[in-house]
């Protein structure tokens, strides 16, 4: 029996060590915890992230994550709980995340792997977009789309809708699902996210290669 347990333990260790990271913590502030299997530690800057990692932010805290395929970034705001999960299919990297409560900002590059965010009541598929996903303590979900397109599915009622940039969607525990134009977004929310996370700006990018091979990019933003 002891030998069997030892073998199982070693296999678990081996499997864990063989697992590859799926993302990286690039910025954070305040108190943020990382739960991995049953172990909870403070999340540190530069920590690699693995499947099924649970990130929890507390008061006046946030964490900024990027996936290894550079296909998407997530900004988890204060008092939020997020579970990460990914799946690789050939060269596509599908990211499925579960937002239990709190507020999340997503930014997804076009033609990268799918990104979907599940909440207690909703599944939102993010298609080359940026937007907020907010889940209250009851599980009611609000999706605020800034750019691009979200596909929203209410898991209670089975209702489905698409939400385009400039619109919001409410999906609640009663199965109701409706969209409406964006109301006044809290200015603090907008200040929290970087300007360059809006991909839909009119920007001309010119890439140059220096004589030593170093690459530089000039970005011209058109007003």
């Amino acid at each position, binding site marked *: 029996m002891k030998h069997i347990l030892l073998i199982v333990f070693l296999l678990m260790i081996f499997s864990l060590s063989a697992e*590859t*990271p799926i993302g*990286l913590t*690039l*910025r954070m502030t305040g108190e943020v915890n990382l739960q991995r299997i049953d172990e909870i530690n403070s999340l540190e*800057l*530069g920590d*690699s992230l693995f499947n099924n990692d649970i990130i929890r932010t507390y008061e006046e805290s946030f964490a900024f994550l*990027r996936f*290894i*395929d*550079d296909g998407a970034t997530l900004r988890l705001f204060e008092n939020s709980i997020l579970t990460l999960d990914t799946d690789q299919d050939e*060269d596509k*990297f599908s990211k499925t995340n579960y937002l239990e409560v709190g507020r999340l900002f997503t930014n997804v590059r076009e033609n990268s792997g799918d990104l979907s965010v599940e909440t207690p009541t909703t599944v939102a598929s993010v298609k080359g977009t940026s937007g907020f996903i907010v889940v209250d303590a009851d599980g009611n979900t609000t999706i605020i789309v800034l750019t691009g397109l979200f596909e929203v599915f209410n898991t209670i009622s089975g209702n489905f809708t698409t939400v385009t940039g400039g619109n919001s969607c409410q999906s609640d525990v009663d199965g109701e699902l409706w969209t409406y134009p964006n109301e006044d977004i809290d200015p603090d929310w907008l200040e929290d996210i970087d300007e360059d996370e809006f991909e839909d700006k009119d920007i001309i990018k010119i890439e140059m290669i220096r*004589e*030593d*091979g*170093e*690459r530089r990019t000039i970005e011209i933003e058109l007003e």
Partner: protein
Amino acid sequence: MKNFKLTNYKFAVGLGIFLVCFSMFTTNSFANEIILSHIPPLYVNNDRQTPISLTIISRYELIEKASLYYRRIGDPTFLQIDIDRSEIFSNVLAFNLPPVDEISSGYEYYFVIETAERTTTFPTRNPQTNPIRVRSKSPSVSFDQNFILMNDETVLQPNQDLIFAVSLFPIVKEVDFSSLRLFLNGVDVTRYASVSPPLVVYKRDKPSSGNYNFYVRAIKKNGQTIESPVWQYQVLEKESFTRNFPFDMSGNASLTTNLRDISGSEESVFSRTSRNDANFRLNFNTRRNWFLMRSRLYLTSYESSSKQPQNRYSFQFSIPHVDIHLLDYSPDYGSFLLSNKNLRGIAGRLYTAGLSLSAVYGQSARALDGKEIVVTETPTMDFDDHITYSKGTFQRNTTGIKLDIGEREGLRIGFGFVKVKDDLDSLEEKYYRIVNQHEENDLTFLTSPRDNLVLGFDTRLSLDNQRFIVGTEVAASIYNSNIHEGAMSKEELEDYLEGESLPFDPESLDKLIIINQNVEPIIPGRDNLAFQVYLRWFLLNNMLNISYSEIGASFRSLGSPYTQNDARVFTVSDYINLLNNRLSIDAGVNIVTDNLSEQKSTTTTNTNWHIQSMFRPAANFPYFRSGANFSTSSNDLEPMEHDDYYESYFLKLDQEMQAYNFGIGYRFEHFPHTVTSVDLSYDISEDKDLTEARVFDISRDSYRISILNSLRGVPLTTRFRLSTSRHKENSQPESATKNFSTFGLKNEYIFWNGFLTPYLDISLHTFGEHNNTLSRYDLGFNMRPYAQTSINTRIELASFKDKEFDDRDYNTFGWHLNINKRF
């Protein structure tokens, strides 16, 4: 006693030779220092030019010309790219290295910056033999677009952690991650990074301000080497008042303290003597547009009102065409006029193209009172009890003016004079003159006030971009060793000269120089002249130096005190590089002869030959060095001709010294996990007195081995050293051979990228006839807690054991601390 005289004389001659050479070949220029900075490229390109740049940190506007000397590795000759003054618009000078062909392995290069005052190179030491070497990029290395930069926040605030992360997700299955290397500013920092496929993550907590350039290199499973672009991160400087100050500021501050306690038995020579000292240095520079200010402050615990100043306060202000120096300054008006002398006063220089006028006025010595001495009667001396005084020091004032006409590149002529005079009113009479207690008219001067005037003329011709320089310096001096009585009248002086008629009135010249019976020379001639000619020529990898000087017996220059008069000095030296810089040879001869005026009873000649070589066959081969040094000192005294045979027996000088050294070294990189450098050397010398007296005949030989070991992957360095030498006095066969041995071991470990480096240094010495021992233990650390700040401290314990006399044993404890901050 006579042995002491001979030894003392020998020491004086040797010191005089050293001082002559030192005064002739050292320069002491404080102003207009050019500071350079350069980061070599990671490699040179095969298919296109490689840009390189040199940053001038200070005074770039003084640059007359900037040159890049480069050659392919293996070529004997450097090619040159020049940038003229008219093409310099900023403090960053840009050059381009041509594409390197497939055959060559890269380039070697160095920079030369020329101003009106000096020439500065980068690297600063031996750039021709130790140029910067950059390899060509391996043709198999190709850039790959599949490196994904994870953190694109490339401008960081102060106190913000730096995260550099790269994902190789698109090619994760193609890359051999064990071959992955991460480079930061050209340095492999892979061991400090976390590699977890497909991620490479490097983190540095609160890095210091500056630029951080990263790139990643890896080998694919198909053998291809790939490389990422170079990404630059910039960490901003902290907000401080200096950033908002309208002037650019830079400098550094350093505090050093040394505490020493020595303890031993009551009979020990070193019983209970403690020495503590501290000093503080502050260098502060500021500039804005055309205005520059530089200051140097040095405060030391050795400063005392009863000694000459040890503290230094230096201020320099510069605007176009004008330099002003306040307080402490060491002007250089030439070898004979004014050099290597600190003055506390004011100095200035007006200059334009082809013309420069310099002037200085200050104190070279401050007045110091003597000490009171109570003299009591003794049975053997018939004195009444009384008080006397030791000699003091007069305040010495120096005035100098120098005019230079011409350009540094080309012909330049200079005229100047320096007057140095002691202030008679600065010292009470009791501190410089005493009266014989029994004879009132018997006066003895403890020290006398002096006056000195030196006129000088120099020329310098520079050709072929200063590869050929020839120059001359001529000076004449008038020196008065005692001006206490003032100038003599014309009649008095003619009477003193026994009827010689003078064409001038000495009293009318007393503002220029005090002329009385103490002046030297009274009749000017060759004896009060000094001249020097020199040649420096860089030709076909040879650095040739030839110089000849004669300094008359009566030549005195209080402004250049290290010149030895009544001497003739001839020096030839050559430094040559052969075999594509693999072999360097330094050889020369120096001959010093005194008694130029033939007034002495003997003429002493000192001759020194030296040759030193270094041979490095190839990068992965051992290096070899060898050298020889011969010197002779002799005078022309024939003992049998002297009246006092026994006295002349010991005045005869005929000494010879021969020394040879050999060395070999090699850097072993073949061992796993470690890099080891080994150096072996052997020295042998013989020092003998060739006269009949045979005062000494000493043989020495010594062996040294040094091993430096660094671990790969672990920042631990170990240095081991072992040396042993034997001294044998052959003129005294009964004397035993003295052995000297040293064993040393030093370990240091680098924590957190150099934030903290503790070290332990143990050295054990045995020496002397009875194998006395000295054990020393140093425990310390170097720390860099903040940007451009370092703290170095160590505790030093030493123990001396005398095997023959136990009461001479002693122990020492020392604590040393240095804090340095650059800003």
